[in-house]
């Protein structure tokens, strides 16, 4: 009842449009949110509706629909004019907000199948042709986590001696990749393409588009478990890359035990110990940099955490294969800077704050916790998270595990109050956490005023961040 009543206010239609925009017009995601939401008045918190052309078009369609809907009811009531039809008319009017929430996606669904899909088909065909005609070595990077970081490391290290191009930012879907190939000069030596997976078959489709020569699988975890249904499906989807590559080399992250167990004779395992004959030694984990030696060569990387060593070593080994000199490789590593919101350390009030808010999976969380465990000399170690999203039926188990993992590492845990908070608390309690627990009702207020909570000597790890559609 409260949910229904919360629809009856001015601006309700804006809330629906806002959420469509937030979910990037993913109808399935929007419908899942509709089922979850309890109060439509308490949705818009972080951002606001941006009146794009698409939004204006959806609004116009909705307005026309509402007008027709009400006119039809009035017409029906006037023509039939019985007490029953008044009652039915009243009920239909009261149902309008509920009907509207579904009507609003109709133009998207119709547009998708009549216009978008055929157009996309043409774009992808053209892109496939461009990739197959391009002489560069193509590297595909896939994984539940760590793929953007891997792509950036490969781009920086290989780019120090070769002309390379890599998919920009978080672009890892077919249309984005198609746009990427459109902008190439044509004389690149190496193309690095990140591929993101949401459903079984996604990686095969992108491999057919790009036709890669070398592959990287950076990790397997429960990311997008809700859309995949099972871990087996996730693993199978990532290993579509193996199927496609056949005998071509595939680099697997050996720090991930699941990948380690899937190694075959055409795969190369890389880990924080090195890969093949290349040895990583003398590792020093620091809050603002990582030091190690690679085949005796001293390396200092601004990417923090042990989990970044393996992929850096793999990029160095690959660079050697491509004929890059030691000097070039070193300059490629020197050029690396932390990626925004991915284990990016900053200093605030004398505290080290590691911003890992793009991290949204258990593996990444545990890697962050491990990093903090390894860092010493700090006054307080503080962990900040709202928890993870899209964990399907593993939601409880994943968050209990996070709670447990935090226990002996952090002095203070700050949680954003939401549906998974109690699971993290359970995990903390199970392992006898004795530190301070703070539960925040207004996350935005907390993040904006983070400095008020910090002092010199603090080490803060902030992992994941929920947009409004997940609360």
């Amino acid at each position: 009842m409260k949910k229904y009543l919360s629809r009856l206010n001015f601006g309700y239609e804006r809330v629906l449009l806002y959420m469509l925009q937030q979910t990037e017009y993913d109808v399935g995601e929007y419908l899942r949110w509709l089922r979850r939401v309890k109060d439509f008045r308490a949705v818009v918190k972080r951002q606001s509706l941006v009146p794009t052309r698409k939004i204006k078009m959806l609004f116009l369609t909705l307005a026309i629909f509402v007008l027709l809907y009400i006119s039809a009811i009035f017409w029906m009531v006037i023509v039939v004019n019985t007490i029953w039809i008044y009652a039915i008319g009243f009920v239909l009017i009261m149902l309008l907000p509920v009907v509207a929430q579904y009507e609003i996606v109709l133009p998207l669904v119709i547009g998708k199948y009549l216009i978008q899909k055929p157009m996309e088909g043409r774009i992808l065909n053209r892109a496939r042709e461009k990739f197959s005609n391009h002489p560069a070595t193509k590297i595909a990077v896939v994984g539940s986590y760590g793929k953007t970081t891997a792509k950036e490391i490969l781009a920086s290290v290989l780019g120090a001696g070769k002309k390379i191009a890599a998919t920009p930012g978080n672009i890892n879907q077919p249309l984005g990749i198609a746009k990427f190939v459109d902008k190439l000069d044509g004389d690149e030596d190496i193309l690095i393409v990140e591929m993101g997976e949401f459903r079984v078959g996604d990686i095969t489709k992108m491999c057919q588009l790009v036709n890669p020569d070398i592959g990287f699988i950076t990790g397997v975890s429960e990311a997008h478990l809700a859309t995949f249904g099972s871990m087996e499906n996730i693993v199978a989807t990532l290993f579509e890359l193996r199927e496609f590559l056949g005998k071509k080399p595939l680099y697997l992250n050996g720090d991930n035990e699941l990948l380690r167990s899937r190694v075959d004779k055409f795969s190369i395992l890389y880990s924080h110990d090195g890969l093949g004959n290349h040895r990583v030694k003398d590792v020093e984990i620091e809050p603002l940099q990582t030091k190690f030696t690679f085949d005796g060569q001293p390396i200092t990387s601004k990417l923090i955490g042990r989990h970044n060593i393996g992929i850096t070593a793999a990029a160095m080994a690959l660079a050697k294969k491509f004929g890059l000199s030691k000097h070039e490789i070193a300059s490629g590593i020197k050029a690396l800077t932390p990626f925004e919101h991915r284990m990016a350390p900053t200093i605030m009030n004398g505290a080290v704050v590691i911003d890992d808010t793009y991290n949204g999976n258990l593996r990444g969380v545990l890697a962050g916790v491990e990093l903090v465990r390894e860092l010493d000399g700090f006054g307080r170690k503080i962990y900040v998270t709202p928890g993870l999203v899209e964990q399907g039926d593993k939601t409880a188990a994943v968050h209990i595990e996070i709670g447990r993992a935090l226990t002996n590492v952090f002095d203070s845990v700050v949680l954003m109050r939401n549906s998974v908070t109690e699971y993290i608390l359970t995990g903390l309690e199970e392992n006898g956490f004795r530190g301070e627990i703070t539960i925040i009702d207004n996350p935005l207020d907390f993040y904006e005023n983070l400095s008020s909570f910090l002092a010199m000597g603090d080490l803060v790890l902030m992992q994941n961040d929920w947009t409004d559609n997940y609360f």
Partner: protein
Amino acid sequence: MDKKTIAVFFGGKTPEHDVSIVSAISSVIKPLRLSGHRVVPIYIAKDGNWYTGDELAEIRTYQTGKIEAIVAKQKPLTISVNDGLTIIPDGRERKAVRIDIAFPVMHGSYGEDGSLMGFLRMANVPFVGCDMEASVIAMNKILAKQTAHANDIPTPKYLAFRKSEFEKNRAEVLRKINNALKFPLFVKPPHAGSSIGITKVKTERDLENALEVAAHYDEAILVEESIENLIEVTVPIIGSDEPILGNVERPMHLSSDGVFDFETKYLSGGKKGGKGGKSGKQGAQGYSEIPAKLPAELYRACEDTAQKMHQAVGLSGIARVDLLIDSKTNVVYFNEINPMPGSLYAHNWVVKGMSNVALVEKLLDYAARDFEKRARTNTTFATNFLKQF
């Protein structure tokens, strides 16, 4: 600490009215709210009337001048002190809020000087910061120096006069000063804060004028010798029986005449005189060296002097002890006490490892403990005095 309802007092009939607003909103109200406490802002206008309302906790209200309209339109609040402190906004009983802890963030007279603390004692409500007696001594530079003197804590040689004494017999006052003290001298009104009315006097010629300026601001005048080869430092302290010392801090800005004037202290924002050293920190009062780069022994001597003074005056909650060092003789002199340091000196505590949120929480905890301690002290006992009368 459990979530409490906290009345934050700020503004006041003092030249430091605006400084108090900034201190209260940025360093007290914000962290208290972030901690989940309910904050009742109590704004004391320049005319002395008291107001409350959520808008008064927003810095914009004061920056945009909206405060003038609020003060003109809104009814001042009513306070009940029966069995605790209750705030009745706009005189409407149904909106009455009972206060768990009071948090005075007043600078200068009618607030920092013990008067508000006296009122809060009468209201029987726990409050943050120094108690009434300590505040009275701390905010009276003459009483503070006498306390230092009585406790063998070095303080620059001084003389004190009533304003009336100076006005009646100027020549005699000037003669006494010339005989007893060595130039250069500082002439100060003993109560004013933020260096208002203070003059550094290098020769006898300027003395009378300086005494007039000080007399304009106060009923008494303090004249003290200037410490040469000066290193000025300050030591923030929290707690009462087992105080915690902040970092010994060395402010890096001095105006050309060697005094921290009001503008240098609060308005410069670190722009005057360039940046501080590597460990420089921009706090409420421009750049400072935190911790001060002093030889270890001298650093410890500063901490020791500050702690002795804390004990001698009976400070509690929060305070800041300002010290003067003669860098040639390495003697540490007590200068003055600030029982409500601007912005709580949160920048110093941050370097000490205590966040702004942790600092206000700690102060609330001290307030509750000090209150309990006071409550345990018997103040009444049965007599047969009336029967015998």
